[in-house]
């Protein structure tokens, strides 16, 4: 691939482009909904909040929804898979969530590709906006080297006041850009300017020193007192997992219609922090305590899956920290185990 060219566009043109795309795509963006700001479907670009505020859920819900039907069937045995994918544009996704998408992409595409997730991803255009400062006190993307997107987007926008510097990462992104956004050629210095601003915003905020060695370190610290300290406070309420952009465990359940003639198989978000998650026949539970479950969850982020994805699977978005009533934080745990 040739070196990506640098393009410039105005914010106005982007918003106008999104409104035009609305006839072909459903548009998702950060928007206000009563007392909260969330990623949601919008009807017009007026509804977009350009300034990021942490949301309870990440954009994961659009590719891997809370509940979805995967099969329809009749009692006579006619079974049809259900895969519902629409043309989507996700606008204004921030680096932590983009890294989250990248990790989910890898997980769902691996070996047996998950058709439901992948179909949705295939039909979507993800437009990222780079962050120029850390969004709040709970976010720690910079600690886990996640304040820059390593993937997960088709188009990336870098803020230059009333303009954006654009980078394109995929062919479908390129096509979308050409079709909907008016651009002018830009200079490498434009991008540098945007990046310099980011550098300024994140000044003094460094990644964990030994981040690459996390899998090793966590492997060695199976008996660290932190597991008991933090685990004993855990409510096993699963909030941390529900809000996490990189968690993807699910449960599958069959539901027959009331007349018992037809039915559906559905999957819904599940959570390894919930007490019944690893229970099997005869009541044996392979992870009976909150401490073990917390350990497993954090190991997935910094040990097992990190080794597989080549990057920390916690993207430091801070959502679980905000969500946890008991104040349990992957950052604090990592600090206690690996040092600041």
């Amino acid at each position, binding site marked *: 691939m040739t070196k990506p060219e640098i393009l410039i566009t105005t914010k106005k043109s982007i918003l106008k482009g999104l409104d035009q795309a609305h006839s072909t795509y459903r548009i998702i963006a950060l928007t206000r909904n009563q007392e909260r700001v969330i990623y949601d479907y919008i009807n017009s670009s007026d509804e977009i909040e350009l300034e990021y505020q942490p949301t309870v859920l990440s954009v994961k819900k659009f590719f891997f929804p809370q509940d979805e039907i995967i099969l329809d069937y009749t009692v006579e045995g006619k079974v049809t898979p259900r895969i519902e994918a629409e043309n989507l544009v996700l606008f204004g996704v921030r680096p932590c969530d983009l890294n989250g998408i990248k990790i989910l992409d890898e997980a769902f595409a691996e070996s047996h*590709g998950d058709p439901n997730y992948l179909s949705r991803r295939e039909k979507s255009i993800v437009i990222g906006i780079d962050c120029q400062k850390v969004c709040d006190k709970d976010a720690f993307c910079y600690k886990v080297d996640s304040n820059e997107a390593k993937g997960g987007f088709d188009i990336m926008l870098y803020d230059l006041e009333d303009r954006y510097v654009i980078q394109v990462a995929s062919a479908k992104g390129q096509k979308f850009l050409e079709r909907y956004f008016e651009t002018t050629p830009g200079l490498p210095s434009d991008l540098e300017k945007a990046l310099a601003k980011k550098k300024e915003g994140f000044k003094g905020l460094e990644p964990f020193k030994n981040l690459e060695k996390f899998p090793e370190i966590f492997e060695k610290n199976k008996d660290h007192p932190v597991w008991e300290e933090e685990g004993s406070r855990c409510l096993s309420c699963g909030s941390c997992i529900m809000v996490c952009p990189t968690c993807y465990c699910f449960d599958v359940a069959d539901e027959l219609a009331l007349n018992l003639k037809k039915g559906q*198989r559905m999957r819904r978000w599940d959570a390894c922090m919930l007490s019944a998650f690893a229970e099997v026949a005869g009541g044996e539970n*392979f*992870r009976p305590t909150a401490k073990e479950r917390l350990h*497993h969850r954090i190991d997935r982020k910094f040990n097992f899956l990190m*080794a597989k994805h080549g990057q920390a699977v916690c993207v430091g978005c801070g959502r679980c920290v905000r969500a946890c009533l008991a104040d349990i934080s992957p950052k604090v745990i990592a600090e206690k185990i690996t040092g600041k």
Partner: protein
Amino acid sequence: MMQLDLQPKDEKLYLPDPVRIVEIKDFTDKERFFKLEILSGKSLGHQPGQFVQVSVLGIGEAPISISSPPTKDHFFDLCVRAVGNVTNKLHTLKVGDIFHIRGPFGHGFDADIQQRMQGKHLLFIAGGIGYVPLRSLINNVLPEHHRYKKISILYGCRTPKDRMYQDELAEITKMGGNVELFETVDRTDETWKGNVGVITTLVPKVELDPVNTITAICGPPIMYKFVLISLMERNIPKDNIYMSLERRMKCGVGKCGHCQMGGVYVCQSGPVFKYADVEHNEEVF
């Protein structure tokens, strides 16, 4: 930047295929044998040790080991213990009834392992329903027993009534030669003349040359710990021990997260594991 392929490869990943029950045998009041025919006419194409996700529409799915050896035809066997929603429902079905399966899934006794077994002493240790997954391998090697140094099968049940595949067990006893079968029960009754005691009491009865012995184990969770101790006492290398493990499963294809033990997915890296590979995984035992 690396572009990941997001093409959905398998639109039918979660679509189960119909199978028809052609034979049913009740081993015990909880365990039932099914011989099944794949309606599409295709053969299952499995390795010994793999499993299928059994679907009863309207009830749910459950992972069940394939208990017959690989074949070219479109028949295979399952043996199901009734413990919950899906398995109880399976026990209400009759010959001719249809249910569904997905798979085969998982990593069984693959070609490499089978290659390693050539010319070696094979030691099978099965507790209760653990005989089921091992049977796909046992019945695969028995007809070619001469290609192995020896085949020893240790089988333990709670009571004589719980013994499954009694006809086949009788056949195996008759084979003689380099094939031997040791059985034990935890609790005896008047019909039983054999060994009484837990399965580890059988291990010392087998004559073996540790480095040339390859072991395959399957049974209830607590069995592993004790069997492994007795195998260690007999100096069998950890590299020569395979075990088939069970966990809760929802998808069977490495996504849902339920079967994870530490970092490994049982449905992908397992259910057959080499002891040496999982020895340090705290969640295995």
